Structure formats: C-alpha cells, structure tokens
C-alpha cells in the first residue's frame, strides 16, 4: 500500500509540472503580446506595461520565464491585478466562501445522490427507479447556468423560498446556490450508484452471499455497497473539477463573493492575471484532490494495491 501511495505521488508530480507548463504556455508562449493578452482591450500606460514586463520577466528567454514563474508559484505568488493587488490576497479573502459553498454542494450531492441511487438500484424497474432515471436525465441536460437562473426565478423570486443573491442571510444564502451547484453532480452520483449497484447485485458473489444465508440487508449493505461505491468515489475526484468550474457560474449568478465570482468578474473586466492566477490554483487543488481520491480508491479496492 505504501508503495502504491509513493507511486501515485510520483506520478502526480509530472502532472502538476505539465499542467503548470501548459498554463504558462497558454499565457506566455502563444504568438502575440502576452501583455495585451493579460490586459485585454484595456489601454495601459507605457510605465505600467514596463512594470508588467518586469514582473513577468517577459524580456527573459522563455525557459527562464517558466523557471521564475514556477518559483513564484511555489512561493505563493499567483500574480497581481491591475491595481497592484496580489492575487494571493484575493484568494485568502475569498477562499473560505467558496469552500463553504463547495461543502454544501458536496453534502447535497452525496446525501441525496447516494440515497436516490441506492433506492433506485435496489428496486430496479420500479416507479421510483424510473423517476430517478428521468429526473437525472433532465438535470444533466440543463446547463448549470440555466438551472441557476431557473432556480433563482422560480424558487427565489416567484416562490420566495430562498434568498436569491448575496450572502446577507447567513447560512441560508448558501442553500440555493449550493443546490444548483450540486445538481449536475447529484444526477451523476445517483445514476452511477444505481448502475453500479445493479451491476454488482448481479455478480456471482452476491449469489454466494445469498447461499450463505445472509439477510438481504447484509447482502446489500455489506457486500455490494462497498463494491458499488468504488466508481462513485473515483467520480468524486473528477467531480471536484466540475464543482470548481460550476462555482464560477453559480457564484456569478447568485452573487456570492467567492473565488468563482472573482474569476467571473475578472473575465468580464478582462483582468487576465487574476483569471490565470485563480484558475491555476483551482487546477492544482484539482490535481491534489485526485491524488487523494486515488489513495482512497486503493483503500476501498484491495486489488489495486498490489499493482
């Protein structure tokens, strides 16, 4: 097991390096002026331009640029916005909000998704099962931002059930955006759990468990659940990527002052450096989280540990 963890760690490093290189290349190595790219259509005074050139080492050869870029990243330097404010400060300020939102979403999706999936899987082809399949298909078809607006309109404006914007109502403010953020993933988790459960219930070892005289609850709860959860767990790793991307849209629509909103605003105001900085952070968090998921996967499935 320790060897597996070590190997996974070693594999994550080139991915981190590769991803940072990709990001760097996208910003600085494409043809065209990176300063223009970072600033968009905003006109910059020559002095400011020169300052940016120094800051990003644009007069150095590409390799050196990359080296200094990585060095900066490691020290927590994610760039600055055009008023000179370090992105790391923005991150510090807004990260807790986004984390709370992501946590609410995660809670929604695991609790509701798993429950729906398990119930649908046990009672395959029942009314509940068809209901779950139908509603998940619908949810998956509606893009997050559409869902967000619809929720805002119907549940917030029309029915007045939830606050529709801002963080003014304390914890309640997180509910609607959290649910919208979770919706897509909830649908996946439910379907994945259901399919996985149905497949596992057909396995031979379930037949053996029955032949041993185990109770149905023991068979489903103990024997199949753990096996069925394996793909769900791995999904959650990918899901973080969806959550992070979705946070941009959701925080934007619901005006939640988190990191996602920061990206949302920065895209609109063409603050290229902020966009790059925060998205880079997201990417690193995503890679790291997937590493954790890999390890969790091995903990659940002993067959993987010995590869």
């Amino acid at each position, binding site marked *: 097991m320790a060897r597996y963890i070590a190997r996974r760690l070693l*594999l994550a490093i*080139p*991915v*981190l390096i*590769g*991803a940072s290189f*990709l990001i760097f290349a*996208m*910003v600085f190595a*494409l*043809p*065209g*002026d*990176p300063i*223009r*790219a970072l600033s968009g259509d905003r006109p910059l005074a020559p002095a400011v331009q020169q300052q940016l050139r120094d800051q990003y080492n644009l007069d150095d050869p590409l390799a050196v640029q990359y080296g200094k870029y990585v060095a900066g990243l490691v020290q927590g330097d994610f760039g600055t916005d055009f008023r000179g404010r370090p992105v790391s400060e923005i991150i510090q300020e807004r990260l807790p909000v986004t984390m709370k939102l992501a946590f609410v979403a995660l809670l929604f999706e695991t609790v509701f998704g798993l429950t729906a999936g398990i119930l649908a899987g046990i009672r395959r082809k029942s009314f509940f099962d068809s209901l779950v399949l139908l509603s998940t*298909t619908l949810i*998956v*078809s*509606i*893009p*997050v*931002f*559409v869902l967000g*607006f619809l929720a805002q*309109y119907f549940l917030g*404006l029309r029915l007045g059930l939830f606050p529709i914007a801002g963080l003014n109502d304390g914890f309640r403010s997180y509910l609607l955006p959290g649910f919208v953020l979770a919706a*897509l993933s909830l649908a*996946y988790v439910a379907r*994945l759990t259901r*399919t*996985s459960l149905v*497949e596992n219930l057909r396995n031979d070892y379930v037949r053996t468990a029955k032949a041993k005289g185990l109770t149905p609850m023991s068979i489903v709860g103990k024997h199949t659940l753990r096996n069925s959860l*394996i*793909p769900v767990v*791995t*999904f959650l790793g*990918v899901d973080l*990527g*969806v959550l*992070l*991307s*979705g946070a*941009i*849209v959701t925080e934007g*629509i619901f005006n939640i002052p988190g990191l996602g909103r920061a*990206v*949302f605003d920065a*895209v*609109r105001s063409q603050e*290229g450096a902020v*966009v*790059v900085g925060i*998205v880079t952070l*997201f*990417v690193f968090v*995503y890679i790291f989280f997937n590493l954790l998921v*890999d390890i969790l*996967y091995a903990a659940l499935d002993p067959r993987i540990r010995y*590869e």
Partner: protein
Amino acid sequence: MSERPVTSRPSDNPSDTPVALDARLPATGTGRDAELPQAEVDTRQASLWSDAWRQLRRSKLFLLACAMLAVLTVMSAFPQLFTSQGPIDNCDLSNSRQPPGTNGAWFGYDIFGCDYYANVVYGARVSMIIGLAVVGGAMIIGVLLGALAGYYGGWFDNLVARLTDIIYGLPLILGAILLLQFLAQARGERGLFEVSLTLVLLSWMTFMRLFRSSVISIKDTDYVAAARAMGATDSRIILKHIVPNALAPVLVYGTIAVGGIIAAEATLSFLGIGLQLPAISWGLQINSAQNYIRSSPHLLFFPSIFLSVTVLSFILLGDALRDALDPKLR
C-alpha cells in the same frame, strides 16, 4: 499499467460511466452439426450492430430523440424554413424586450427590438455546428491516437498516456477559459474556429482512452490471432477486425458528448469568454437576458428551453445507443 480503468473516469461531459464493452464476436446461426434432423433451424444473423438496430427501432426514447434531432438539424441547416425573418431584420428599438404575443411575435422581442423567435431559431446553427465539429474532431484524434497507442504500445503509448494525464489535470471549463483568453489574443478574435479548437484540444482524451482500451482487449482475441496467422498485415487487421468492434463505446460516448459540448459552448459564451456578439448563440442570448429576469423573463426562457431540449436529445440518443450496444445489459 497503473492508470485507472476507463470506467472510473467519466470526465466532465454529461454522460454516465463510459461503457466498457467487451468485444463481441459476430456469431453466425448454428455452430453445430450440419445434419440436424429438426425441422426449423434458427439462422438469424446476430451481429452486434444488427441486434442493436433491432432493439433501437423498438425504443420509444430513441425515436423521440431522433425526431427532436431531425427537427433541430433542419433548423440549423435551413432556418428559413422555420422563420421568414432573419435575426437582425426589422429590428426596431421601440419593440425592445416586448413579451411574446406583441405584434404577433411568437417569442417577443430581444433587447435590440429584433424578433426573438428568429434569433433563437438561428441559434441552433451555432450549437449544432460546434457540437458536431468538436466531437468529430476529438473523435478522429482520439481514435487515431488510441489505435496506435493500443495496438503498438511501447513508448508511444506511454507518451500519450502522460499527455492525457496532464490535460486531464485541467477541467474542461477551466482549461477552456484559459485557452480561449489567450487564443483569442493570439488570433485576434474569438469565433467558431477558436472555440471549436479549444474544445477539441481539451476533450479528445476520453475518446482516446475508450478506443485504446477496446483495441487492447480486441487485439488479444483469438480471431485477431487467427487473422495474423493467415498473414494479414497490421493495417488490415486494424481496419477490418479491430475498428468495427472497438467503435461502439466511442460512438455512444460521442453522441452524449455532443450534448456536453453544446452545453459547454453555451456556458463559455454565457461567461463572456466564448463566442462574442454579434454571433448568435443561445449562451450569448442567455447572457444578455440575465439582467432582465424580473422584467422580461421570456428572454431567458426561450433560449434555455431550446438549449436544454437539444442537449437532452443527444443524451437520450446516447443512452438508447448504449443500451442497445452493451451486451451485458441484455
């Protein structure tokens, strides 16, 4: 290989777990003794594709999805059949944001006083083009790389695997935001080509993995060994034996992915980093609508409905295809 099995990486496109299909041999009628004294002998040719087609024809969801997609395809190719107006014809600012029913406009008017119905109908074109082009491109790249990587293995396989790992490190929307930001700068504009290119570059990996894993499981089968023993060349083996059997999961995923790409383009346009005005895209329309939800909700609803129905059709189609092609579910 220490990489995780494909079925555990659904990727951020709307799809259930990609199907990990076993290669299925085309079976011919009875394989037994020829001198069966029984009267009727069932010689139904049961190949994967003909069985699938038979099942599909009976599936109501499949037919529904096909019907919806047919309408949408015609709408994107010949929008004139659906509306006599162009999207920017007869725009009159005095009609700005008027609700449906005003002056007989089915969907009302948009911010600029243009007929909203025409705008929404014309929006189908962009979505369908991007959806099909991106998936087409990603499929070609994925199948090519997957075939080579799966069949020949070795250093090439490793290289491709590392590359996919790295790109997988960038979730689709996040990567697209970055790439589009700077691709636009490099090329000076953000049109269909730039958006399509971005999405292709970020989504070919799952196709590659699916195809590669099919190729690997098929190339070790007995009938491929038999073909090789009879002297078939590599390319003949790949083209004639491996590809037809390995394509099934790729096609299923591809169908569902079209829906995902359409949703992704809409999201990017909504965020302001995808297509730009005056392009006509449902995402852009929803973007413009967001400040007027209270006063003119119709601006939000119509493109939303069209967008959702389009994505839904592809997903239903993909689901139906998967149910028909997956031998395990029979």
